[in-house]
C-alpha cells in the first residue's frame, strides 16, 4: 500500500516539476547511506524519482516554507510543492490563516497516513498502524486524510488510525503532583543548551526576529541556565498556544532529549477543551487567541 503511494507521489511530483507548475517539491528522501529518511528538495523530475513515502516520514516539512530556498521562491511570487501528512497540512493551514503563505503559491501533495514510527525504528514494509509502535500523536488521528491538499495520494478509506490516547503521556504528567511536575521539568530543562532546535523545527516559529533575539529589553535570558531555559520554554509555549498542531517535531529535534512537545501538546489540548478550537483544521476559522466568546471560562477571575 505504501509502495503504490510512493510511486504515485513520485509521479505527481514529477508531473508538477516537468510542467514547471512548481519550482521545487519539498518531500522526503532516503537518509544518508539509505538509513532512515530525511527531507529532500526535488527540483527536477529525475530528483522527484528519489522521493520516498513510508512510516519513517516523521518530519514536518512545513517549516521549510519560511526558510530558504522556499521563502525566497514564495517572496518573488513563485510556487512550491510540498508533501504533507495530515499533521503537516494542519501546519500549512495555520500558515495560511496567519497570512504567511498564499494558497495559490503552494501545491500540497497530501499523503493519506496511518501513522509514523519513532525515528529509531527501521523503515518497514508493513504499515505503521499494524506494528502498533507509532508516535503518540498518531493515535486516534483525525487527519489521516490531510485537511488541505491539491493532490491526494493514498486511499482515504485505508487503514484505521492507531488506537490509544494521543495525550497519554501528557495526562501522566497531569496526574503527578505540582511538586513532581516541577521536579520533572527542572530536571529536564537543566540540560537545555538553548540550541533552539525546537524553535527551528517548528513551522509556527517563523518570526524574522525571535523574542529571544531581542536585547532591549532582554525578555528572555540568553544563558542556558535553568532560569533562562524555563523562561524560554514558557514563553514559547504561550506564543504557540492556539497555534500548535501537535506535530511533536520540537521534542524530536531536541538533541538533549527534553520532551518539550509535551508542553505545547498539553496546551493545545487545553485550548481545545476550553475554547473548542483545534489549530490547523480550517483555513477559514479564526485562531483561538484572535477571538473570544461571551461565555469563555472565567471561574478563575475574582
Amino acid at each position, binding site marked *: 500500500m505504501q509502495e503504490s503511494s510512493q510511486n504515485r507521489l513520485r509521479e505527481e511530483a514529477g508531473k508538477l516539476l516537468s510542467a514547471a507548475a512548481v519550482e521545487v517539491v519539498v518531500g522526503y528522501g532516503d537518509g544518508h547511506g539509505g538509513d532512515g529518511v530525511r527531507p529532500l528538495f526535488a527540483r527536477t523530475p529525475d530528483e522527484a524519482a528519489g522521493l520516498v513515502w513510508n512510516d519513517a516520514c516523521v518530519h514536518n516539512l512545513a517549516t521549510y516554507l519560511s526558510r530558504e530556498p522556499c521563502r525566497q521562491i514564495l517572496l518573488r511570487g513563485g510556487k512550491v510543492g510540498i508533501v504533507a501528512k495530515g499533521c503537516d497540512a494542519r501546519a500549512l493551514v495555520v500558515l495560511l490563516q496567519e497570512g504567511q503563505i498564499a494558497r495559490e503559491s503552494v501545491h500540497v501533495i497530501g499523503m493519506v497516513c496511518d501513522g509514523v514510527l519513532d525515528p529509531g525504528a527501521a523503515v518497514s514494509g508493513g504499515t505503521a498502524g499494524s506494528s502498533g509502535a507509532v508516535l503518540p500523536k498518531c493515535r486516534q488521528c483525525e487527519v489521516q486524510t490531510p485537511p488541505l491538499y491539491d493532490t491526494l495520494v493514498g486511499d482515504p478509506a485505508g487503514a484505521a488510525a492507531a488506537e490509544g490516547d494521543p495525550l497519554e503521556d501528557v495526562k501522566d504528567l497531569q496526574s503527578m503532583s505540582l511538586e513532581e511536575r516541577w521536579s520533572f521539568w527542572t530536571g529536564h530543562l537543566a540540560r537545555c543548551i538553548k540550541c533552539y532546535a525546537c524553535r527551528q523545527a517548528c513551522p509556527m516559529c517563523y518570526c524574522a*526576529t525571535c523574542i529571544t533575539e531581542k536585547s532591549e529589553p532582554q525578555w528572555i535570558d540568553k*544563558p542556558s541556565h535553568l532560569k533562562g531555559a524555563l523562561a524560554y520554554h514558557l514563553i514559547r509555549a504561550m506564543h504557540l498556544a492556539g497555534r500548535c498542531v501537535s506535530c511533536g517535531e520540537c521534542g524530536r529535534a531536541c538533541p538533549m532529549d527534553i520532551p518539550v512537545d509535551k508542553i505545547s501538546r498539553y496546551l493545545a489540548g487545553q485550548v481545545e477543551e476550553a475554547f473548542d478550537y483545534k489549530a490547523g483544521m480550517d483555513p477559514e476559522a479564526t485562531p483561538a487567541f484572535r477571538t473570544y466568546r461571551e461565555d469563555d471560562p472565567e471561574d478563575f477571575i475574582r
Partner: protein
Amino acid sequence: MVSKSDLSSVIARAVSAGYEVYAPGKRNGKVYLEKADDGASPELDHVITVNGVKDILLPRCEPLADFNLTDVSIESIDAPAAGRVLLATRPCDAASLVILDAILLDPARDTRYARMREETVVVTVACSRADAACFCTSMGYGPHDETGSDVILLPAGDSYLVRPLTEKGKAFIGEVGLEADAGGEPDSPPQLTRTVRTEGLKAWLDENFESEKWRDVSINCIGCGACYYLCPTCHCFDITDEAGVARGRRYRIWDCCSFADFTKMAGHQPRVGRHARYRQRIMHKFKYTVDNVNLTACVGDGRCIRHCPVGVDIGEILESLPEGGAARRGGPEPGSREG
C-alpha cells in the same frame, strides 16, 4: 590494569584526593558527561556521550565578573581552580582539546580556559565500538588514538590496560593507586563503517567561497545550533549581562554562527541566509583553522550527524563539495535576495 568495575573506586579516590570528577552517566536512556560523585559508577557501554568535554572546560554559561555601577567596581569571578578529571572520555574528545588549545591558548590566551585546562587530567577510555556516524579515522585520529590524553585506558576484556602518556597522567595514576601497564595486549580497535574522503577539499574551499554549491549542501538545514553546540571543537561565545538597575553579573555563554543575530551589526548582517551561515561552519573548521593553526577543527566524533533533526550529514557534504558537476540535490537558486 584496572577492571571496569573498579573504575568507581578510582572515582572515589580521585574525589577524596580533591578532584572534581566528570564521567559518563546514564539519564533517561542516554549517556551524558556529568559530574560524578563519590559513589558513582561510570557508564562504559556506550559509543560516545551526548555532550563532550567542551561542556566542562568551556561551560555553556560561565560567570565572569560582578559589576556595580554605583560604587563603580568590578569583581572578577575566577575560573574554578580545583583540579578536575575527565574520566572515560573518548579519544576524539581528548583530541578536540588539542584543537581548542591551539585556538584558545596562543597567541591570545583565554585565561579562563587556560586555568581550567592546566588543572584538568584527561583519562581516556579507548573505544570498543563505533557507530555509523563515527569518522575519527578520516580526520587523522582513531578509536585508540592518544592525542590529547594524559592517560589512556585500553580495553582488554573486562579490564583496561593503564597507559599514562604525560607527566600529569603519571602523577594522577599514582594518586589514585593505579599502576602503569608497560605490556599487555589490548583488544583490537573497532572498525569504522564510515570513511570521509577529504582529498581536494581544502583546495576547493580555498577557491569556492562564492560557489552555488553552498546553497545545495545546506538546503536541509533548519538553522538551529544543535550541531554547533554539541561539536567538541566549536568554541564561539557571546557575552551577556544579568543585571538590575545598577548591579549585575556578566556571563560568557555559548553562541553559534548559525544564529541570525551572530555577527549582526548596526544595520548590517554580513552573513545573510542559511547557506552563508552553513558555509561559515565548514570554512571555519576545514579552511580557516587550517590556515591559522595548521589543524582541522574536526575530530570525527559524529555528534553533528547523530543529532541533526533533518539529516544534514557533514561527511557526505565534505565529499560532495570538491566533486565536479552540478550540485547533488538540485540546482542553485539564482538571483535570490535574502531578507
